[in-house]
């Protein structure tokens, strides 16, 4: 037993299994959060039926998709139709293997970690193209072409923004990038006299386009292309595309957090007296407070079973908050908390975009990508180089 635990591959494999099991669940709950937040923006309630306040809705959706009939159009290219969604899902999942969740929580920390993430996002494009092509439907093919053209256009701007981030950190290793920010004592976004805010903005815009989300959700513009490249997909194959999409939302947010927002570092990593209030107080108050607020909702529910589920949820949140007060545990989980907290904030911002901005036309989208984002990103790289050299001298 001891030989297994002390094996160098034990921790990575354990994290791998945990991630592969957690990502579908997280993707499902991201969709619930998105629906709830959007509903809140529009003064609606959102999903309310399955579980208290729709808490079990993603489970119901997953089960529904699992037992739905799987329709493969007779004119389609069956083999490619079969594996195209697997390509997308697999690429989106593999990007998780280099994300630094905390100081010691990462499947792998490699020298070219950032390039592994971007290579996986470029492989994901193939899944979309092949899925759209193999369906042999006009809507799918047009959606796939549009989607792929959009993704490749914004990938250039994304790469320029990443270049600026890499310049501030001086390494391509994901853990190395976080550690460089710890050494500098400042998050990447505030480096170079605050100029890094420009590549950060380029990154956020390009990443929103890269995940095909509003206001850049042209490929799935439902009023003109039905459902874009996955029009013909149903049942679990559709679920795989869905999973890939939400996994990518998480990945781009995680990369932004790692490069620009300090990864698993707390705010003000250079100020030591803030360690206790930020690492102990903040998560305990946030999680414990959410638990208490959840308890106040229990009274309003009629169904006793729903009440029980909600009490269970509230107690879990409170226990999670209390865990952060134990010093021995805190050191291990504070980094993870900050990483996930920052990622959640960025995902919230992306949902906020969706609730705020109207969809662009396709020519406007291409104009933003090629005529604004790319030149701005390119100029930001040079200006960052100048500022970095000046600050070094």
């Amino acid at each position, binding site marked *: 037993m001891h030989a297994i635990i002390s094996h160098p591959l034990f921790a990575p494999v354990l994290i791998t299994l945990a991630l592969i099991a957690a990502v579908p669940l997280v993707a499902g709950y991201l969709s619930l959060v998105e629906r709830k937040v959007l509903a809140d923006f529009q003064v609606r309630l959102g999903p309310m039926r399955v579980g208290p306040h729709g808490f079990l809705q993603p489970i119901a959706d997953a089960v529904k998709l699992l037992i739905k009939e799987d329709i493969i159009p007779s004119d389609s290219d069956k083999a490619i139709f079969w594996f195209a969604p697997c390509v997308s899902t697999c690429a989106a999942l593999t990007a998780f293997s280099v994300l630094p969740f905390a100081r010691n929580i990462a499947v792998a920390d490699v020298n070219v970690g950032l390039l592994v993430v971007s290579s996986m996002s470029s492989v994901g494009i193939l899944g979309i193209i092949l899925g759209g092509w193999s369906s042999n439907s006009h809507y799918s*093919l047009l959606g796939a072409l549009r989607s792929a053209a959009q993704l490749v256009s914004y990938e250039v701007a994304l790469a320029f923004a990443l270049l600026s981030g890499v310049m501030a950190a001086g390494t391509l290793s994901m853990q190395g990038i976080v550690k460089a920010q710890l050494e500098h004592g400042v998050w990447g976004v505030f480096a170079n006299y605050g100029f890094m805010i420009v590549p950060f903005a380029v990154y956020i815009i390009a990443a929103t386009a890269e995940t095909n989300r509003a206001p850049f959700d042209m490929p799935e513009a439902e009023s003109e292309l039905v459902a874009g490249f996955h029009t013909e997909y149903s049942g679990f194959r559709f679920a795989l595309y869905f999973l890939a999409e939400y996994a990518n939302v998480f990945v781009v947010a995680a990369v932004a957090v790692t490069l620009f927002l300090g990864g698993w570092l707390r705010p003000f990593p250079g100020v030591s007296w803030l360690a206790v209030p930020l690492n102990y107080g903040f998560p305990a108050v946030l999680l414990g407070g959410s638990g208490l607020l959840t308890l106040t909702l229990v009274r309003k529910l009629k169904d006793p079973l729903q009440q029980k589920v909600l009490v269970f949820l509230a107690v879990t949140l409170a226990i999670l908050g209390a865990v952060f007060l134990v010093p021995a545990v805190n050191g291990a989980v504070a980094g993870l908390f900050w990483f996930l907290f920052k990622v959640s904030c960025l995902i919230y911002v992306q949902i906020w975009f969706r609730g705020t901005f109207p969809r662009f036309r396709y020519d406007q989208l291409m104009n933003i990508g090629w005529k604004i984002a790319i030149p701005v990103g390119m100029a930001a790289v040079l200006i960052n180089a100048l500022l970095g050299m000046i600050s070094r001298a």
Partner: protein
Amino acid sequence: MPREYLPILIFLAIAIAFPVAAIAAARLIRPAAPFRTKLEAYECGIKAASDSRGRYTVRFYIIAILFVIFDVETIFLFPWAVRYKQLGWFGVAEVAVFLAILAVGYVWAFKKGALEWV
């Protein structure tokens, strides 16, 4: 092979197995009742007049080839971005020249309307 890549390969193997296993498992419980009309491609209600794999606008081709060119450019810059402080002003000048030459191409394509989506 560097040791630290082994976990990524294991992750990749499990990530490939997961969707394949999920689709295969779903086959056991999902219904299968296909008929001819159900298996037609989604259209307005009548059968599609033409095969969808026809010819499309060349705009997509321009976008793709410009993407490849700029992708090569950014990849060239990644090693420099990692080491630019050590390479000093000389490296910055090199990259400035590199980007300037490509900027000429970019401005030219811009002026010719190649970036225009019509």
